């Protein structure tokens, strides 16, 4: 079931299109990765979902209902450009953000206490942000995003600006929230985090959606029937033209081969005539490679 459904979304700034006919379905309780190079339209899409800007056309449904101000309470947002009031105390600040999200003063106080304890920053609650270390402030920033325990958590480049230790803490929090049923939508251009975290992903390039599906589906789609082969004791020369890439290291030959409709088994038996097969494996592109390929394909169009 999809908790968030985006249909035919358009947005442009003057003559420049930011989003063109975007359709997306974000499944409930999963981590959804929104990928794309800088300037692709990710932030515009995220801002529209957060009701910061309005779409030119199209509709967004939250659990089947049209997106409305009442949904603000159920969405947590960590923008790419983020900050806190430097001269405000940690607890006061969190209280303010929680109340702005629609929590009552009492509930907000309880949540502040809970989250400060959870992330080990309770001792700092009466310190001003300007007196905190950067890492500490980052934790406070994350708490400000999740303080109202939203059903949908939207994170724009969540790991940018976080030091590795805090990034790890945040990652674990995200996974924990997902396990508790929170839907997470994160945008990033750091691919290594996508494969670790995301269940689903969509890719946007130059305002268009170019890819959409579960991580497995996306990878399957990108399989090109390419295999990586390693041979030893090659006798004679291999037929020309079938390998993309060949390296010779200490008598070993390593190459990639793209098959047509041949079955791998037939090919392997053919290969055995040339030498001893040390390795034979399918080349499955990483998300990063898929991403780069898609961006390149787009440029040629």
């Amino acid at each position, binding site marked *: 079931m999809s908790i968030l459904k985006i249909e035919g979304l358009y947005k442009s700034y003057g003559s420049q299109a930011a989003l063109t006919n975007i359709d997306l379905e974000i499944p409930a309780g999963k981590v959804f990765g929104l990928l794309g190079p800088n300037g692709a339209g990710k932030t515009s899409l995220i801002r529209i979902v957060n009701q910061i800007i309005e779409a030119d056309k199209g509709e967004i449904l939250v659990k089947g209902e049209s997106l409305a101000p009442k949904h603000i309470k159920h969405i947590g947002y960590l923008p790419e450009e*983020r*900050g806190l009031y430097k001269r405000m105390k940690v607890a006061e600040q969190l209280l303010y953000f929680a109340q702005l999200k629609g929590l009552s003063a009492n509930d907000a106080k309880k949540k502040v206490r809970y989250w400060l304890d959870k992330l080990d920053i309770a001792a700092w609650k009466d310190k001003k942000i300007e007196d905190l270390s950067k890492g500490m402030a980052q934790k406070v920033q994350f708490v400000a995003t999740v303080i109202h325990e939203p059903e949908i958590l939207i994170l724009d480049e969540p790991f940018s600006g976080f030091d590795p230790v805090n990034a790890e803490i945040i990652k674990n929090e995200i996974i924990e929230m997902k396990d508790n049923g929170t839907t997470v939508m994160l945008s990033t251009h750091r691919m290594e985090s996508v494969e670790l975290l995301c269940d689903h992903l969509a890719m946007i390039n130059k305002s268009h959606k170019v890819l959409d599906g579960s991580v497995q589906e996306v990878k399957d789609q990108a399989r090109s029937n390419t295999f990586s082969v390693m041979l030893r004791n090659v006798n004679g020369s291999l037929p020309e033209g079938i390998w993309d890439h060949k390296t010779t290291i200490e008598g070993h030959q390593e190459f990639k081969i793209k098959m047509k409709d041949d079955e791998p088994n037939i090919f392997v038996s053919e290969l055995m005539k040339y030498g001893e097969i040390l390795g034979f494996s399918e080349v499955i592109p990483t998300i990063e490679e898929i991403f780069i390929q898609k961006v390149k394909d787009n440029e040629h169009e």
Partner: protein
Amino acid sequence: MNKVFLVIKREYLARVRKKSFLLATLITPLVFPAILGVFLWISLSDEGEEALKIIEVVDEGNQFFMESSGQYAFSYSELPVDEAKAMVQDGRRYGFLYIPKVDIKDPKGIVFYSGNSTSVSLVDHLERELKRKIEDIRLYESGIDPGFIKSIKTDVSISSVTLGEKGEEKMTDAGVNYALGFVLGILIYTFIFVYGTQIMQGVIEEKSSRIIEILVSSIKPFQLMLGKIIGIGAVGLTQFLIWIVLISMVSTVVMGYFGMQMPQQQVMEMTNPEMAQAMAQSSEVSKIIQVLQGIDFLQLIFTFLFYFLGGYLLYGAFFAAIGAAVDSPSDAQQFMFPVTIPLMASYFGLFVFILDDPSSNISFWLSVIPFTSPIAMVGRASFGIPAMELILSMLFLIGGFFFTTWIAGKIYRIGILVHGTKVNYRTLWKWVKQNN
């Protein structure tokens, strides 16, 4: 609306709790009475202790006799000029007045020498004395008794009375009304600038520290802007309230110490009709009393508060929009122009036209156009304003407030999310036109 209240609360508390607020609030009202106190103290202590100043007079024609006063003593001699000058130089004399033998119809060549730079008031005093003496001599010569001239001197004092629409009579006095209009106009001008700048800085702070995007994902930009403007306005009102209380208290103490009565107390006594009657002999005082009685203070306070807040809100929205359009306070300068110009215009208009003739055409327009009316109208307030004009101006101001806030809201909404782009007037106009 609940969220607007949260913003108001935060903006208010964040400022009121600051030490600098406390300091500025406490020190500012102490500064003026303190300065006043110091002046009074100096001038009072001066009077008793000052040594008698001796002025040497060499009157070659023996025509004039200067009478010594408490401050100055005139010593007559027939010393040569050089010797008298030397007495001034070595400090035996404060000054030396040299009167050559002059033609009484055309007295020329009178010189006053002094060691220090000469005080203007002393020279004035000397001139007046000599003038009087010469006039007396000439009257005498032409056979007219100076006593007769004194006896025919007549004082004329015109009471200026304004007739109200229902025929009620009201004493007016340019001086009193001028002072009131002057003070109230400056108060509004200062308030708009000081607190408008605070709005701008607040917006820039939220923008540059990147809190803004978190905020606008929870609250509509317009609500945020409104909350900030109202919150800071409340800070200003609080500050003024504290000042009024403090100034009254401190002035009472200071004035009381120097044996003076406080203006407020006088006003209170004056509004008491019996007291007023008793004091009516002194015509100048009674005139001021009557003028003050003629002013509808309730209306004045109401008018002041209305334009005070109206003007602040009208311009506050602009300051917020400017803050949203720029990345740092130094960039804001270029957009301050359209805010500064009408405010300056109304400020100068207040002095040049309104206080001079509150009912002239230009005064009317200045006090109806919403951009100038906050300052212009309070300048007119104590003179009495026709009800129709007041209502018209107020409606325009309310309309103007909605208009500027609407325009500013559009700029604000887009501006707060724009970073690192050079924004000019054309960009602003594009934002205003943009629908979403």
